[in-house]
Structure formats: structure tokens, C-alpha cells
């Protein structure tokens, strides 16, 4: 398209708004000699003729004005008249929303119902460090004896045994937990329950018990840690297992200053059908501040 054609198209667009006489004459002269611009002009004229087929509607202003006023009055009646009213409404709505959000937040942050724990002396340093600084403790080693007529019997050992607590062993991370201790299926299971001050202490305690079992064993000891301020988030740290009740007792004795634990005996195995079932007195004890009882 030449520059003349561009000018001609521009003039064609502006022709209906009115163009000077000289430009109109130039446009006519250009259209005589340019077939392309003639086609554009004819196209515009055709569409203009089509649009002119639709005559303008007659607007009834006498009826329109009252109708518009009625609509304005209707809209004014339907909405608050002052912008301050709207602002106040928005403020109230925002306040209510914020109040609901705060109430929901505080309801969610409140600690759930938890059984009251025994009074615990809070310790500021972590448990592992405190244990590491303590000297190997004298512990009472629970041993197993068979009495006549009983399948198993647990009693306190007469002489305290000095057993060092392995504290320098590297702690295993959560991602690589220690393999479960190998125990015979019929090995008795000792259950210990420890109550600690906080969930962090519970985690620290459970991590401390994830040490590799020192020697083959013939019993299991499971420690259930119960923090006073709520459950531990990681379920795998809520229960710790050691190779033997003896080892558990050693560790709990070492932690005696901070951990209050209870040990419960396993139920006696069911007697053979041909053997009379003797009465097996249940024994339970506490390790730590209370010691075995």
C-alpha cells in the first residue's frame, strides 16, 4: 500500500465527520485512479447502506425521564444513603470476621484434656547432657528366679551391681531407626511408663533409648513416654524399646533425677492344660525417684 493509499484510507474514515474541500478533492482524484482504494470505499459504502436500513428509533423522552427518576429513587431506597454508613457496615463485618478467626485460633491452640501428671522437677538442660554428666549409677538389677510352683518370679537382686551406662554411643537419627531388638517370641515383655515434663524431653528420652542392644537377650522392655504437656507428635518416639529390662532399669535409674517411671510385669504365661495354674502375684515397681518397689 502506498503512502497515498494510506492517506486516502484515513480520509475515507474521516469523511463523514467532515474534511476540508481540498482534501475531499484530492480523495476523489485518488479514488479515480486507485482500484484498491475504490474497493475499500465501496465496501464502506455497502456496509453503511446496510446499517442505514435500520432506521433510528424514536425515543419517548416524556416517559423515559419519570422512569429514570423512579429507578434512581428505587436504588437510593435500596442502599445506604451515606458512604459513612457503608464504611461502618464494612467495619462491623471485618470486626466480626476477625473475632471469629481469633476465637477459632484460641480454641485450636488450647491444650487438650490430659491426665494430670505427677509433679516433676523441671530441668533446664537436656536430658542426654544431664545423663552424660552423671556418673554410672548403682542400679538394682532385676533377675529372674523360678520358685516352686511359679513359672517366673521377679525379685530384687540382693547386691547392687555397678553397671556403666553407655552414653558415648552415637545417637541414631529418626530416619534410620535402630533395628528392633531380637527377642524370642516367648520372651517376657516389661512395660515401663515414664512421665516427663514436656514433649521435647520425651523425644530426647526416647531418642536416648534407641541405642543398639548391647548383647543378645531373652526379654523385651518397652518404655512408654508420657509428657505432661501433651502427646508427642512423633508416634515412633513415644515408645522406646530396649533389649532387656535390666538395661531399661539402668537407664531409668540414671535418669532418676528427671524421669519418674513405673515398671509393670508381664502377665504370667497360661499354664499347660495338664498343670494346675498357680497364683502369680503381680509385682509392679517404679524406677527413678521412687526406685523399684
Amino acid at each position, binding site marked *: 500500500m502506498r503512502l497515498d493509499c494510506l492517506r486516502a484510507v484515513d480520509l475515507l474514515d474521516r469523511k463523514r465527520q467532515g474534511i476540508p474541500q481540498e482534501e475531499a478533492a484530492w480523495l476523489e482524484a485518488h479514488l479515480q485512479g486507485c482500484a484498491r482504494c475504490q474497493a475499500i470505499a465501496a465496501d464502506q459504502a455497502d456496509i453503511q447502506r446496510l446499517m442505514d436500513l435500520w432506521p433510528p428509533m424514536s425515543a419517548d423522552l416524556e416517559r423515559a425521564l419519570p422512569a*429514570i427518576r423512579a429507578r434512581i429513587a428505587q436504588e437510593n431506597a435500596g442502599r445506604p444513603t451515606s458512604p459513612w454508613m457503608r464504611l461502618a457496615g464494612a467495619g462491623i463485618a471485618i470486626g466480626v470476621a476477625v473475632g471469629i478467626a481469633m476465637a477459632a485460633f484460641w480454641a485450636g491452640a488450647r491444650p487438650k484434656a490430659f491426665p494430670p501428671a505427677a509433679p516433676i522437677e523441671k530441668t533446664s538442660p537436656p536430658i542426654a547432657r544431664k545423663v552424660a554428666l552423671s556418673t554410672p549409677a548403682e542400679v538394682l538389677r532385676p533377675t529372674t528366679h523360678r520358685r516352686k510352683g511359679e513359672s517366673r518370679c521377679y525379685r530384687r537382686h540382693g547386691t547392687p551391681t555397678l553397671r556403666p551406662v553407655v552414653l558415648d554411643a552415637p545417637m541414631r537419627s529418626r530416619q534410620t531407626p535402630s533395628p528392633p531388638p531380637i527377642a524370642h517370641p516367648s520372651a517376657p515383655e516389661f512395660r515401663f511408663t515414664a512421665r516427663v515434663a514436656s514433649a521435647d524431653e520425651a523425644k530426647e528420652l526416647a531418642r536416648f533409648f534407641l541405642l543398639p542392644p548391647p548383647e543378645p537377650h531373652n526379654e523385651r522392655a518397652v518404655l512408654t513416654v508420657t509428657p505432661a504437656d501433651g502427646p508427642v507428635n512423633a508416634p515412633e518416639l513415644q515408645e522406646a524399646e530396649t533389649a532387656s529390662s535390666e538395661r531399661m532399669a539402668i537407664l531409668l535409674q540414671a535418669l532418676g533425677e528427671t524421669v519418674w517411671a513405673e515398671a509393670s510385669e508381664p502377665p504370667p504365661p497360661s499354664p499347660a492344660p495338664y498343670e494346675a495354674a498357680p497364683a502369680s502375684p503381680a509385682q509392679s515397681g517404679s524406677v527413678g525417684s521412687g526406685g523399684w518397689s
Partner: protein
Amino acid sequence: MAGMMMARLQRPYTFKMFAVALKRGKTDTVPTAQCASASDEHLMARVREGCEASFDALVRRHYGAVVNFATRMTGRPDLASDVAQQVFAAIYAQRRRYRLGAPFRTWLYCIVRRECIRTRTREKREPLHTCDPSEQSRTHADPYNQAESKERLAAVARALLRLPERERAAVILFHCQQWSYAEIGAAIGCSAGAARTAACRGRARLRRLLAEYLEDKL
């Protein structure tokens, strides 16, 4: 003295005069003669201050054109007056949003276009009879010519409704309202070049849709 008064009354109402009236708090009592001579922008500035006479003058000036534009945009003459009334009611309700000095006509048609789109969406039905040519078309003595004219008119209305909304608005504003492309661009929210492109595309589509009527040379 009387001559001076007459000259003062016949003088076009300028923005400076409006500012003086605004200072005196007399914008509600603008004479009708001044309303007739004032520009749209000045009238709208008075409407912003709550002058009902200026609003009536604006309605009288633009109501017919708005109804025609809405008729072509919606294809429903029965809805066009409703759209126009709704538009003017909305203008009065939103008069504080009008920016002083901005071209009123493009602002008005921007609102009209939006209201037409909203109406079309709300109706969700194609017009069976896009218009009643018997009331609007030129009277023909010959019944055959009258029927042919009705048919052409209905075809034009149908073809317009098949255009995309922006192209339809550009074609209608260019060919029916005789607007420039710059004004069309301001009304439909684009540049003048984009408005020209939209109008050209709309014309090409209309030409394809109405080829049989164009071959007859109308």
C-alpha cells in the same frame, strides 16, 4: 442593559462560570438555557454536585442515541429503552466517579456497552424477532417491497448479533453514530488503531454474512 443581559444569557456556559456558581453554592439553579448550551462535560460536572436540571439536559441530549445503540447491540428494541434507563440511573448513582474534564460521551457509551453485555447475558436467549420493521422501517406503498425490506432488516440484525461484541460495538459506533476511531477506542477500551482493526474485521464479517443482500445491491 437588556441587550447586555440577553448577550449574557446566550453566552455558552463555560467551566469558569460553573466554578463561580459552585463557589456561590448555586449549582442547583442553573437556567435551562445555560443547560442547553453547556457541553456534556460541564453538565456532568454539575450533575456531580447534584444538579438535577443538568442531569435532565444530559438525558434529553443522549437518550435517543443510547436507545439506538442499545437496540443494535442487543437486537431487542423492547430491551433497549430498559437498558438506556438503567444506564442513566447508574450514571446518576455513580456521578461521583466521573472524572472532571474527561470526555463524557465515551464514558457514557462505555457504561452502555457494559450494560448491553450484562443484559444479553441475563436474557440468555436469542431474539426471535430482533426488531419490528413495520414500526421502524420506512413506509413502502408496495407490500412486496415492504416484506423484502423487513427481511433485509432482520438479516442485518441477525448478522450484527453474530459479530463479536467488540467488533459489533465498533461497527455500530462508526457507521450509526459517526464516531471517529479514537472515540470508539476510548469507548470500547482500546487504542484507535485497535478500534479501526475491530471495525474492519466486523465489516468483513458482515460482508460475508450478508453477501446475498450485497450482491443485490440492496
